[in-house]
């Protein structure tokens, strides 16, 4: 049970489960492949017949609109058949186990699963027990990993900035509960940026966050100074008040990205957000809609990156 569950014996991509242990060249191959799907002039995404006759199941045990939709579009642009299943624990509450659910779908001639689950490690568990010819893509598991989000974030950064090695990147907000943050940090460090920072209050940072390979800041003004990219994380509603934070207003006061704070970063700094945004909680509308924001580009590029992952996985089979 190791990271290389996602790699074959000769280093090819078998599943995409986490950025952890994913070699740099595989990441670059995905980014390069994604670029091919985007028309350089119009930014339109081409339709190609690569996966025609294949069936891809979008298996979502946790609600999602954006991620599921972009996966669906990506699969359709590759000419695959797509089946969407939102399993709000209904069949699980009938006594069927997670692995039973998956095996039933395998019997329906699935070629690939795109899976989101609210438990860390759930997608690993499935990949570990699934028939070897079936591919699994992790579309987010608990607090653990969201590898395609990290890849599309890399793609977006690379699209606007040619050289990763000089970049300082700040990730702001609820690092503790964020699979996006974990995958972004791993991806940015694997690709080799100058510095990754995390900014947030102690209640939203994991113990010894430094061991993830980041510089930790509690002060937003200090953390944003001279950065080239700001990734703002979504603050989940249930965490806005209680024992982690007193109120969304107080959070915005300390950690909201405002136009004034944005001035502390480099003038052409990119502002990113994995969505969906809470305007006025983690980000001011003026910044979200401002010239530095590449948030909508992230969504478009997300389709191309997911196409790249799917096509590379199916090519290996």
């Amino acid at each position, binding site marked *: 049970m*190791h*990271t290389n569950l996602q790699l074959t014996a000769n280093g090819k991509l078998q599943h995409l489960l986490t950025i952890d242990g994913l070699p740099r060249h595989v990441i670059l191959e995905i980014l390069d492949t994604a670029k091919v799907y985007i028309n350089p002039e119009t930014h339109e995404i081409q339709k190609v017949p690569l996966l025609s006759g294949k069936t891809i199941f979008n298996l979502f045990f946790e609600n999602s609109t954006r991620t599921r939709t972009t996966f669906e579009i990506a699969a359709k642009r590759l000419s695959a058949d797509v089946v969407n299943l939102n399993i709000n624990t209904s069949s699980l509450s009938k006594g069927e*186990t997670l692995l039973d659910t998956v095996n039933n779908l395998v019997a329906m001639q699935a070629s690939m699963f795109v899976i989101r689950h609210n*438990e*860390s*490690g759930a997608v690993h*568990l499935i990949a570990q027990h699934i028939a070897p010819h079936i591919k699994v893509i992790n579309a987010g*598991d*608990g607090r653990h990993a969201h590898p395609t989000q990290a890849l599309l974030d890399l793609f977006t950064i690379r699209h606007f900035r040619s050289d990763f090695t000089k970049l300082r990147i700040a990730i702001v907000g609820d690092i503790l509960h964020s699979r996006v943050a974990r995958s972004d940090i791993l991806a940015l460090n694997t690709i080799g940026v100058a510095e990754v920072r995390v900014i947030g209050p102690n209640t939203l940072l994991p113990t010894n966050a430094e*061991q993830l390979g980041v510089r930790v800041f509690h002060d937003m003004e200090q953390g944003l100074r001279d950065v080239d990219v700001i990734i703002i994380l979504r603050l989940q509603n249930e965490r806005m008040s209680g024992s982690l934070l007193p109120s969304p207003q107080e959070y915005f006061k300390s950690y909201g990205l405002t136009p004034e704070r944005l001035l502390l970063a480099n003038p052409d700094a990119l502002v990113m957000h994995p969505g969906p945004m809470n305007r006025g909680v983690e980000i001011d509308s003026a910044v979200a809609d401002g010239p530095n924001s590449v948030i909508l580009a992230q969504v478009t590029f997300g389709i191309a990156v997911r196409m790249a992952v799917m096509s590379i996985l199916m090519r290996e089979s």
Partner: protein
Amino acid sequence: MHIKIAKGRVIDPVNNYDAVNDLYICDGKISAIGSPPAGFNPQRLIDASGYVVCPGLIDLSARLREPGYEYKATLESEMCAAVAGGVTSMACPPDTDPVLDEPGLVEMLKHRARTLNQAHVYPIGALTMGLKGQTLTEMAELTDAGCIAFSHADAAFTNNQVLYRAMQYAATFNFTVWLRPQDAHIGSDGVVHDGEIATRLGLPAIPPLSETIALSTIISLARETGVRLHICRLSTASGIKMVNMARHEGMQITCDVSAQHVHLCEQDIGYFNSHFHLAPPLRSITDRDAIRASLANGEIDAICSDHTPVDEDAKLLPFSQSEAGATGLELLLPLSLKWAREMNRNLVDALGLITCSPAKILGIDAGSLNIGKPADLCIFDPELLWRVTPSTLVSQSKNTPFLDMDMQGRVVYTLMEGSVVYETCKGGLP
């Protein structure tokens, strides 16, 4: 029945005895070591050359899952596992279903165990009804029914007033209270140590504070009430330090660790391997090393198996949803031997931690080779290498983090009260 156990390396930790010698059993009791007693006429000869002959092992925590969880394990299956592991006495936590909070249940369990007649079962009664931390159990009645101590199993106390009263009451009758220290709130949704693995895998964490805060409360209450206290399955270096400070102050306090925690740490979890989901969680390397050192210098009194059979389905779940625990009765001996080898300790030291020392904690007359005592014996091959696989384990559940690992040392014979309750062919597995 007269049995001669010939030419074994006889080790009796309580008497610091270690010599190759013959051991004689008459009518279920150890009758002599060295030369045969008068009128000895062996009906059975056990050739123990190359083997170690020691007191039957005593396990301070073995869940036998009855009543209530027979789909995980049964008394029959786990008694077989016990004797296959050389264990002849075991204490059973009260977290069965129903909870061991009524004398009738305890009597039934004792009766079932006696009928099977393989190993001695010592039930630990629940300290509060249903382990809910509200109402005291009938401790005197439960003691009469066969309970040897009172514990709260894996249920944390939310109300310290009740814990205070429970200790006062237990102290009145000189009952021992066994507790595994864990805060009711800090880390209550956690599944792994609050360290590198929790951070990397995004799993909810249990900080060491959960143990030390509870321990501080427990020690304060025990100091006040004067109750005899046993701390179960310490997992942190700071917890060990606290227990030993209390001990130096003169308090009656003992402690144990699980065999898993002697060898494993959080990093061993790898990628969500639910076999490593244990309670308390596997801690940092520093904590594990403190456990290993404290076993050597006497700060920890005993190693237990913390035997917790879990059915396969309950482990085939995402890590947080999987059930904590590992099967351990058959690994208690090899894991203790492994500790001794790695820490350069002799067999007397290693075996003391799983025989006379736990016997003393339980307050039972076992764990020695004294003449006239019941012949509960473990005879093992200290060199034999074997691999932990589902087929080499007798326990109904095969859930252990040591699956597919090689162990050195394997039980060849187990005797309870002079009867051979387990044996393998020489040099082989059952």
